[in-house]
């Protein structure tokens, strides 16, 4: 382990780590809202809506993220009507391609988590709401939504961590994220062990922080289940 070498290039690694965190945070943020819409649509009464949401989830959960990234990046540059349209301003940039791929991917997985959480809400709670004469919107806002968020947490924290690790794939389309930065440094210095170990530690620390945040969130949202600490 060559600490001096790693220290010398540490600013480069931090730059890479920042891009990784930026991509993951943005895609998770947008993906979360998409996932809610999609998860609700998958449970909708309307056949068409349900069918659309389920096929979207099936496609994005059924194919590897790397292939999705390649399809959006290299695929878009080979379709002439995309290249001639306003879309090209976005899709010509690797950054946006990666962001779109990551967002669509996480939204599909999160939608499945949302769908599962909604189905696991105790029927009694919903029936109780109905018997109070709550409207559908009020029922959603007061019972379905808070219960869903609460039930989602354990599975969703997994998804967030997996997204952090999956984001290493964006290096395949010229983006200098943490992994790609390390690979580039390795191909210049051949110190593979030092750099891979260094970025493994950076990923580990980031993962630790993420699971810490979720643990705090869990403590807060499940506080009604704890025994009184009097």
């Amino acid at each position, binding site marked *: 382990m060559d600490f001096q070498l790693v220290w010398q290039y540490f600013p480069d690694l931090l730059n890479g780590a920042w891009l990784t965190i930026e991509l993951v945070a943005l895609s998770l943020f947008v993906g979360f809202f998409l996932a809610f819409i999609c998860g609700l649509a998958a449970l909708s009464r309307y056949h068409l809506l349900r069918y659309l949401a389920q096929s979207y989830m099936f496609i994005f959960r059924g194919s590897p993220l790397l292939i999705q990234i390649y399809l959006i990046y*290299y695929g878009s*540059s080979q379709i002439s009507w995309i*290249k001639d349209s306003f879309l090209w301003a976005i899709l*010509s940039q690797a950054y946006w391609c990666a962001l779109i791929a990551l967002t669509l991917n996480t939204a599909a997985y999160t939608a499945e988590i949302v769908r599962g959480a909604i189905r696991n809400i105790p029927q009694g709670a919903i029936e109780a709401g109905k018997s109070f004469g709550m409207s559908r919107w009020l029922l959603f806002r007061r019972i379905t939504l808070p219960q869903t968020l609460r039930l989602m947490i354990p599975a969703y924290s997994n998804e967030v961590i997996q997204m952090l690790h999956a984001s290493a794939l964006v290096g*395949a389309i010229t983006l*200098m994220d943490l992994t790609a930065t390390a690979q*580039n440094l390795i*191909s210049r210095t051949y110190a593979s062990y030092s750099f891979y170990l260094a970025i493994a530690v950076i990923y580990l620390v980031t993962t630790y922080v993420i699971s810490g945040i979720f643990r705090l969130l869990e403590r807060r949202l499940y506080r009604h289940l704890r025994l009184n600490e009097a």
Partner: protein
Amino acid sequence: MKKVLFFLVVVIAAAGAYFYINPNEFSRLKQWAGFEKASPTKTIRIATEGAYPPFNYIDATGQLKGFEIDLAQALCQKMQATCEIVTQDWDGLIPALLAKKFDVIMAGMSITQERLQRVDFSDKYLNTPSRFVAKKGSDFEISASGLAGKRVGVQRATIHENFLRKLFPQAEIVLYDTLDNSFLDLIGGRVDLILADSVAVNDGFLKTTNGQNYAFIGPSYTEPKDILGNGVGAAMRKGETELLKSFNEAIKAIRADGTYKTINDRYFDFDVFGQ
């Protein structure tokens, strides 16, 4: 009991099938178990990238082909060694060589000061200039200021990347894992120019249908030597003096007896050995 028996049969059948498909592995197993002595003729494991036509590439049928592959086989024949040629991504070549995954790299790797700190090189066996390539009819001024802000694609960790960084620092450099991916983005319009080995660009891109609207632009570069290196050689771990010596002798021998020329003429209409 039946289940255990069934499981055993499956395992044995799978192992049998595996060794039937990979007879080399079976002889290695026998050697490991002490049934067979390691063969006295040494096996040299040579690694190449397999993504750098016409020097080394994988053809439509999945076969490893190219000038360096033929050259490696000719060199092995001269050295009276059996050779095994494997492929490895460009980034991993030197690390895997150092980790003893194979013994020699022949992958269009230029002899540079930077690499000499880690590995030894044989004498050069080819030397070709580097050039920019862009869309036909584009009027880029090939100078440090002329390329300022232009997006230039290059394969990462190559002499070409170093050359760009030193001589065209104002250009926006986009790094690729393989040359092929940089061509895809040149066609897609994500980069304005590419800097690469002229022969690799010519055969791997310009001569193909994808590259018909593209052309070389600007001069051929062989200088400065401290960046662009002294030609392409076979890389080996430091201290393997025997191997190095036999490679250098074999290179001399195939140059002298015309084998090199025969192979050269299969791929090129000029001598890629350079001056």
